[in-house]
């Protein structure tokens, strides 16, 4: 695996979940607005169906991203942030930096998956177009 591919995977492990959440978020907003805003029902969309589909897709990508980050953490376990010397120095880049990004990716993905799941469960349970 080339250095470039490895780097792309490392960054996928950091941003994959976040970007999946962003797409789920924007798309669901668009569907909700299209369905509920017009005075007449111009867009008769199956909103709950879309919500579930988008959340499922985002969840898959988030889990993939989390998995990638965990894999990278395990692979760089020997020399990284978790084994810092007393002065706080990590091993030389790039291993130290990759290990750091893997730790970051795991936490970020947990948060992103949390939002995807709570909104993915919550939204389909609500009555379509009821005002809050």
């Amino acid at each position: 695996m080339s250095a470039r591919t490895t780097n792309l995977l490392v960054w996928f492990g950091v941003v994959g979940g976040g970007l999946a959440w962003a797409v789920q978020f924007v798309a669901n907003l668009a569907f909700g607005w299209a369905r509920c805003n017009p005075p007449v029902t111009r867009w008769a969309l199956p909103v709950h169906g879309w919500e579930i589909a988008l959340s499922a897709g985002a969840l898959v990508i988030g889990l993939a991203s989390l998995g990638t980050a965990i894999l990278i953490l395990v692979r760089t376990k020997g020399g990284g942030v978790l084994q810092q010397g007393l002065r706080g120095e990590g091993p030389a880049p790039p291993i130290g930096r990759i290990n750091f990004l893997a730790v970051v990716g795991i936490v970020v993905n947990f948060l992103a998956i949390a939002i995807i799941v709570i909104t993915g469960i919550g939204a389909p349970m609500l009555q379509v177009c009821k005002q809050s």
Partner: protein
Amino acid sequence: MSATRIVRPRKSVPNGIWGMALFLCAEVSLFGLLIGTYFYLDFIARSWPPYGIKAPSVVLPLVATAVLLATLVPIRFASRAARADRRGAAITAIAIALVIQGCYLALQILLFAHDLNQFSPQRSAYGSIYFTLLAVHHAHVLLGILLDLALIWMLATRGLTEYWKVGVRVLALYWYVVGGVAVFVVLTQLAPSL
């Protein structure tokens, strides 16, 4: 100013390109919001376009956009020529792109004026967003044309220094993104007819 001695090629993207890339992130955000506004207003309307306004004709805007995209070819050529130290080729390529972009802009202004005769931005939200979206896009094309002119002048008077080589690449990046945005703008403009 000290002349730059090249010892070995750069490993990373030069600062100037980062600067333009980040500026373009803000501009893409701007266009995303403009397009978002267009569809937001679409979603709350009983009819879109409103009664009395014809849906836009499709052919000319699409052709114009294709012409703009075609100018990305000489722009890319200019970028590669600059990297290969070929100043004359770079200037010529930018000049060719400039002429075609100028024709594109002139055509778009004519279409804009024609549309203004059909319906007004002051009568409906549709008109407001339609003309604002297009005007902001055309302003970016105009800015690009001015950048073309500035770069041609700098290359002619200052020469193809390391600084201006990055300058040509920066110009190319600007046009790639403006071209990409143009596709989304025209699809939005023509959405009711597609």
